């Protein structure tokens, strides 16, 4: 066997492995939220492209569809999509900051109790999530109240 061959780490947990955070905590649940919101957004995008193709059937068909989307259940769906988009975008920003190693502070001697990069980024995580929450609330106010 080639010693330089990349090791394979099979996903033994399967589907459960996507949802189980184990000892990873908050960031792992944000990762799960990122996936779920991403899946919701791409599913919506595909449906949105198919649904807006309805304009080819003419003005009446378009007006009927728009009237349906103005109904309260669709307003709620629209808001959930907005919330998913805001969460996905801001959590994505956090992931890029994490991957690029920003805001980690100066390197320190590894003295017990150790400070991990996850914990050094934790305040940033809180700030970004509070910001996401505020934008979601503000967005809802202008979507539901005229």
């Amino acid at each position, binding site marked *: 066997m080639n010693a330089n061959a990349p090791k394979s780490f*099979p*996903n*033994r947990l*399967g*589907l459960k*492995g*996507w949802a189980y955070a184990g000892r990873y905590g908050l960031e792992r649940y944000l990762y799960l939220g990122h*996936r779920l919101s*991403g*899946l919701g*957004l*791409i599913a919506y*995008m*595909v449906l949105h*492209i*198919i649904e*807006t*193709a309805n*304009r*080819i059937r003419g*003005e009446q068909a*378009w*007006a009927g569809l*728009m009237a349906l*989307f*103005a109904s309260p259940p669709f307003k709620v769906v*629209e808001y959930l999509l*907005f919330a998913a*988009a805001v969460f996905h*975008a801001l959590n*994505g920003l956090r992931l*890029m900051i994490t991957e690029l190693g920003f805001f980690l502070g100066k390197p320190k001697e590894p003295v017990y109790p150790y400070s991990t990069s996850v914990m050094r980024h934790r305040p940033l995580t809180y700030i970004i999530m509070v910001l996401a929450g505020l934008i979601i609330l503000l967005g809802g106010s*202008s*979507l539901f109240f*005229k």
Partner: protein
Amino acid sequence: MRETRLWSLHLLAIPIILVLLGMHFAIMHYAPVFYGMSVEEARSFEVMIERGRSVAQLVLYILLLAAGLYHGLYGVRGIIRELPLTPVLSKAVDIGILLFGLFIFALGTYVTWWTFRY
């Protein structure tokens, strides 16, 4: 190298989506805030066709379609490929997602072009 390139494209799509989706939200969902017209008016057939006749809208929407579909479907591919799949099945997932993406992109592009020529 191929995977690195695909991942880089996934990241490159982000600023494009942020700007263009922001514009889309502003036009379609926040028209009262940004354009001083009601959401119903912004979504009416006449206004939608009027907007769709501009070259900028044609180009930007096709770009948003490409960036959004690539970013989203690349993400779906990553999630599915985490499952313990055989190499043949992994290849089938790649091809299936590519064909699906191309089909939806073609449909979206056709509708955008149809609106532009209306």
